[in-house]
């Protein structure tokens, strides 16, 4: 993974000192709260319902075991003993004190971490495919380019006061594991007809109250032109993005207003003037960064391990976990392990300090000390030998980390919701907990198969509800929490936005409603190979709608 050189290390120290000074000026009354707010947000510090929240950057989701131990230490010492892994591959602490924040940042800097640009109207932490570097289907390691973008976007002098936040994601495979087209800029690494490497720019996607699938604005930008094309795109946005209405300030609104073609023309005009400037990316810098991501020297192993096969045959629980939570690896004899942070009845994405320490130890023992965070709020060990899987699984089980539910209906994305967030209409976490209890039977879970369920506590869509196969959105009805259900969304390569099923449900009805949707699918599917989303696409929303509202009526009359 990338390691800081002297320049990166000096930079983070300087930024930490600068923020310490800003906190001191605020505490001394030299800065008003209005002035301090954007400054603290650029350093990941939110004011929430009950306390400050600190969001720590995990660039493109990659963590070392040493960094994970530091995150555990911070959770224990400065928070209530846990942290929350987020859909943007970051970690949030919900209970830090303002005057502790500079000390926390100093601890983070010791392990090459920070909270820079995890919030605020600037270019946020860049996200990527959590299987980068180990996925069999990638044409290039997207981390190399994510790191180029991380450096370019860090304290960018021109783009630190944008109309609104700006999120970039990058992938390098046809399979989209990073919800690429839901971002302000989604980048897909491609090769042109000559075999040269470049980037397809999908600009102007986003979620929130106006969900938009990012349109293709330019199908090929040569690798050396990446930064100039990014600069040109951001410049057009910075100059012309709306600043009069916060709800219309994202780049997606500008792209929609101009049309993708006209937007692309304006970017092109700007780009042609700066393309051959200092922004041209030197090959030696790419080569320098690439060294850090060179494939590790791995022991040569046979593709098939008999001991592993025997264990799977003997232990159906283990076999189910292998089936749900591990993926094919680039290298024979290895598997990619996803560790679910969605235990039955738990808060999605939360990990305790003890769990983090254990995960760091397991990463050292089984995965070259490397860990990844996924945008579905799980963790990944990218380099596990098949013969180690059984021991790893057993150890994970002892810490309630062996839930076999990755990409299944209880692998729920949920935002913090009304339990923490001051913008929320409704709680998200209790809904996730109820649903995960309802579907807790492992056999039933496996039978249902791939089904992505996403929950947001309000229309801001932090929990990706628009692009869940099933989406749940918290709404407020006369001061009561209600939940609107959408079906048919997807954030993957088959991206689509969900459609509203019908009138919203109360907290007491929502779990039944979801269960009816799932049962209806099981009745209607052509076989276990047909995923929920495929059945939905074949039949549309009507059969689901009918069943859900009929059974709601039946339950009502039974109760009367």
């Amino acid at each position, binding site marked *: 993974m990338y390691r800081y*050189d002297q*320049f*990166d290390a*000096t*930079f983070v120290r*300087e*930024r930490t*000192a*600068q923020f310490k*000074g*800003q906190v001191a000026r605020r505490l001394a009354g*030299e800065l008003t709260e209005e*002035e301090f707010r*954007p*400054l603290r947000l650029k350093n990941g510090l939110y004011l929430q319902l009950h306390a400050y929240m600190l969001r720590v950057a995990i660039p493109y989701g990659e963590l070392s075991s040493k960094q994970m131990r530091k995150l555990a230490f911070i959770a224990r010492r400065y928070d209530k003993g846990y942290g929350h892994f987020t859909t943007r591959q970051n970690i949030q602490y919900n209970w830090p004190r303002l005057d502790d924040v500079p000390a926390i940042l100093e601890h983070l800097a010791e392990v090459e971490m920070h909270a820079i640009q995890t919030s605020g*109207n600037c270019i946020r932490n860049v996200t990527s495919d959590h299987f980068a570097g180990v996925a069999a289907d990638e044409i290039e390691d997207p981390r190399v380019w994510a790191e180029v973008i991380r*450096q*370019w976007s*860090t*304290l*960018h*002098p*021109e*783009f*630190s*006061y*944008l109309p609104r936040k700006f999120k970039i994601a990058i992938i390098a495979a046809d399979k989209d594991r990073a919800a690429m087209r839901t971002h302000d800029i989604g980048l897909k690494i491609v090769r042109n007809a000559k075999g040269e490497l470049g980037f397809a720019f999908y600009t102007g996607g986003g979620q929130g109250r106006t969900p938009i699938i990012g349109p293709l604005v330019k199908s090929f930008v040569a690798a050396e032109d990446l*930064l100039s094309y990014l600069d040109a795109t951001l*410049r057009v946005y*910075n*100059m012309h993005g709306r*600043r009069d209405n916060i709800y219309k300030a994202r780049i997606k609104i500008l792209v929609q207003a101009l049309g993708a073609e006209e937007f692309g023309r304006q970017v092109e005009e*700007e780009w042609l*003037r*700066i393309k051959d*400037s*200092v*922004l041209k990316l*030197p090959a*030696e*810098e790419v080569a*320098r960064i690439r060294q850090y991501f060179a494939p590790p020297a791995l022991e040569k192993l046979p593709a098939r391990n008999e001991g592993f096969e025997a264990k799977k045959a003997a232990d159906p629980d283990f076999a189910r976990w292998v089936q749900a939570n591990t993926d094919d690896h680039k290298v024979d004899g290895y598997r990619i392990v996803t560790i679910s942070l969605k235990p039955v009845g738990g808060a999605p994405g939360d990990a305790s300090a003890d769990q983090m320490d254990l995960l760091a130890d397991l990463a050292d023992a089984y995965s070259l000390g490397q860990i990844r965070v996924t945008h579905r709020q799980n963790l990944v060990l990218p380099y596990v030998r098949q013969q180690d899987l059984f021991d790893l699984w057993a150890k994970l089980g002892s810490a309630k980390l062996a839930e076999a539910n990755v990409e299944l209906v209880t692998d729920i994305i949920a935002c913090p919701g009304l339990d923490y967030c001051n913008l929320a209409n409704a709680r998200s976490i209790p809904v996730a907990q109820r649903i995960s209890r309802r579907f807790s039977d492992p056999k039933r879970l496996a039978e249902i198969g791939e089904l992505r369920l996403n929950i947001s506590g309000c229309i801001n869509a932090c929990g990706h509800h628009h692009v869940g196969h099933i989406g749940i959105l918290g709404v407020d009805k006369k001061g009561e929490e209600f939940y609107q259900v959408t079906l048919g969304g997807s954030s993957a390569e088959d991206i689509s936005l969900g459609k509203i099923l019908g009138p919203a449900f109360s907290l007491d009805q929502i779990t039944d409603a979801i269960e009816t949707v799932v049962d209806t699918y099981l009745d209607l599917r052509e076989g276990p190979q047909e995923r929920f989303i495929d059945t939905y696409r074949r039949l549309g929303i009507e059969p689901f709608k009918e069943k859900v509202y009929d059974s709601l009526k039946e339950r009502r009359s039974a109760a009367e």
Partner: protein
Amino acid sequence: MTVLRNGVPQPNEWVRVADDAPLPETDKVIVSLERWQAERVNLRQRNAAIGVALKSEQSPLLIQDDLDRLSLVALEFPKFTDGRAFSHARVLRDRLGFTGEIRGFGQVLRDQYLFMLRCGFDTVEPAAGKRVEGYAEALKEFSVFYQPTNDDRATALQLRHRKEAVAA
């Protein structure tokens, strides 16, 4: 009124003239874009130095044909969170090749000062009542810069590879 140059407060040599006020003969004056456009022919012939102030929604492309005659372009920060002027400064320098003075005025904070200089600003005129202290310190907060802009600060990228060239 004070302006900041290289972090140091200095007396302001330029006079902002309201749209309905008469122009002083000799002073260096800054007029609004509206006045510049209305009186362009006369103003271009004026003997003393002249500058134009642009609001944050006014693009420098509106004065691209007049830059040969202008000694200063002032860019407004109506709120310090309105970052359009950063791009406008870069358009002036990189795209239009303007070599005169670029001045930022309005709601600016020292926390933006380094960014301003990196985008091509020369001077800053904070709004009345705003602190002018701390700007010199703000310049020293960072020694590492990632983005190549057109100022003369070496980027991490250049330093890395210069170093390697020496080592090789």
